[in-house]
């Protein structure tokens, strides 16, 4: 009678889309609903009155028993997740693809103070699939965003490269149009005058004209040399042939070549470079850098000034400095010095003109040799250009 009563008590649960089974404290099955019949192919006639542990022996293990047991004294609901258990009522006829989430709750039993355990088994196959699909979609969307960001960054980089190339081209044209034009014009007008009116001039006047022409030719020559080297560097045709050499010799050579210019302004050119100051670099590039830095220093140093070239070993590098007692450079202008995209030239103390190409070339060459170039200066107190070169091959 008791059993019949409890069966009729649970009859309504035949009509819910959830698998439901009720057991007493001895694991005897009191109710087995239609959903469970369908999923397990065990009919309620077969299940009722049977021991749940006989039907599903894996539930005998401690990990299940310990958590079911507490329900018979009215303890809190127990959850067996689909992820860790898949299907706790698994039979030979169960659909392998289906997964179930099981919650066991305590329900008051017919006997006062006692409890049954009610298993509610939900089919979460479709839900889990949907969640997984959403997660998959989310991951895909995140991947796409990531990809797009990468493409944008690449585009940005290319754009910067193009801008720099464009600036290089502009610089080239501006040098040709402004800086080459002037000495050529001087050269042209003097040579034209000489060719038309040679007889009208005294030998002294002729000598002055020739000196003037020679000066223009020298200027043209050094400008062309820089231009040529620069264009080689830009087009990747510049030969980089590093070797170990004594820097002191190269400094001496540059000083000799530029001594005349310095003497004209009464500027002292001093080399403090120590003996056997070996560096591993391309000697032609270093020569160009030194000549550019020293002639710049001469340009911006007033009469009776002093230019000192010295060196010092710092770790794996030799740091070379060219210090003048010249005009100095403002902080704002320092930032423009090594940049191709900003046109910057300053007129020298004896109205010497520059192209702004020299320092860009220096930076290119020093970096090619694995070194760095920078400048420290204060307006009115002079300027020091520093560069580093490796002391030996890596």
């Amino acid at each position, binding site marked *: 009678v008791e059993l019949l009563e409890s069966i009729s008590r649970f009859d309504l649960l035949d009509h819910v889309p959830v698998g439901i089974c009720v057991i007493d404290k001895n694991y005897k099955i009191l109710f087995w609903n239609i959903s469970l019949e369908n999923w397990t192919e065990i009919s309620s006639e077969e299940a009722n009155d049977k021991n749940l542990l006989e039907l599903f022996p894996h539930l005998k293990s401690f990990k299940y028993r310990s958590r079911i047991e507490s329900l018979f004294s009215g303890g*809190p609901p127990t959850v067996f997740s689909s992820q860790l258990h898949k299907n706790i009522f698994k039979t030979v006829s169960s659909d392998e693809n289906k997964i179930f989430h099981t919650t066991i709750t305590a329900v008051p039993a017919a006997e006062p103070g006692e409890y049954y355990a009610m298993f509610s088994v939900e089919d979460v196959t479709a839900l889990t699939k949907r969640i997984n699909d959403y997660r998959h979609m989310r991951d895909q969307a995140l991947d796409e965003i990531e990809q797009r960001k990468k493409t944008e960054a690449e585009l940005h980089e290319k754009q910067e490269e193009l801008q720099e190339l464009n600036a290089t081209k502009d610089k080239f044209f501006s040098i040709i149009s402004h800086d080459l034009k002037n000495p050529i014009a001087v050269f042209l007008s003097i040579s034209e005058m000489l060719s038309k009116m040679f007889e009208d001039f005294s030998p002294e006047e002729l000598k002055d004209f020739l000196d003037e022409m020679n000066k223009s030719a020298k200027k043209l020559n050094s400008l062309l040399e820089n231009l040529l080297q620069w264009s080689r560097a830009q087009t990747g045709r510049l030969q980089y042939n590093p070797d170990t050499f004594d820097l002191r010799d190269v400094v001496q050579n540059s000083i000799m070549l530029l001594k005349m210019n310095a003497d004209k302004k009464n500027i002292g050119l001093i080399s403090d470079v120590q003996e056997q100051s070996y560096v591993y670099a391309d000697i032609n590039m270093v020569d160009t850098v030194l000549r550019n830095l020293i002639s710049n220093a001469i340009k911006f140093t007033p009469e009776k000034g002093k230019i000192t070239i010295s060196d010092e070993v710092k770790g794996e590098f030799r740091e070379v400095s060219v210090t003048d007692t010249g005009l100095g450079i403002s902080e704002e202008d320092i930032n423009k010095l090594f940049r191709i995209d900003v046109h910057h030239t300053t007129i020298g103390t004896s109205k010497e003109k520059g192209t702004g190409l020299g320092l860009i070339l220096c930076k290119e060459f020093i970096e090619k040799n694995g070194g760095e170039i920078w400048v420290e200066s204060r307006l009115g107190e002079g300027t020091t250009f520093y560069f580093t070169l490796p002391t030996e091959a890596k």
Partner: protein
Amino acid sequence: MDIKITEEQLDILREIINIGVGKAASTLNSLLGSHIKLMIPYVKLIKFNEIQKEIEGNESDNLASLNLKFKGNFSGSAKLIFPTDGASKLVRAFAEEDDDEEDLDEIRSGTLSEIGNIVLNALMGTLSNLLRQHLVYSPPSYIEGELDKLLHADKFDLDSVNIFARTRFVIQDIEIVGDFVLFFEVGSLTTLITIIDSYGEEDL
């Protein structure tokens, strides 16, 4: 409302939670098959609006929460809150077959609701057993999201006083922090304290 709790009452509460945590550990061990240690919890009473600063991690962090409502002489709900970061580590320990990050994400909610269920059941079961109180429970629910969302899933009085406990799971090398908060409806905590008072230390 202000609730006064003596150091002795708090001690009994601590002891009860301690026993519950010990039970949870032994159940988790049987499920995991390797040694899991639940550290001695730190327990205190806090107001609802102080919970924010007690929860491990910051406000914008994603959290996972398991919620168990109960009714009886004292009513309320018990929540177990994990930062999802730590939760993922915990799940990885349980789901040894899949240590692929993507799979982990998919199995997290189910595994966590089960682990949370074990911990909460051990705690609530111990509390009701030791205090000989019969409680009726709703089926547990699982939510993921920011703290605000988790807390507002239940409408609680902002002035209500709650029991806050923090414990650490240590499984071999991984250490995971889980916060355990018991929310009580206003009045319920006073009832609980009265019950604790009628309870001698020798009963523990």
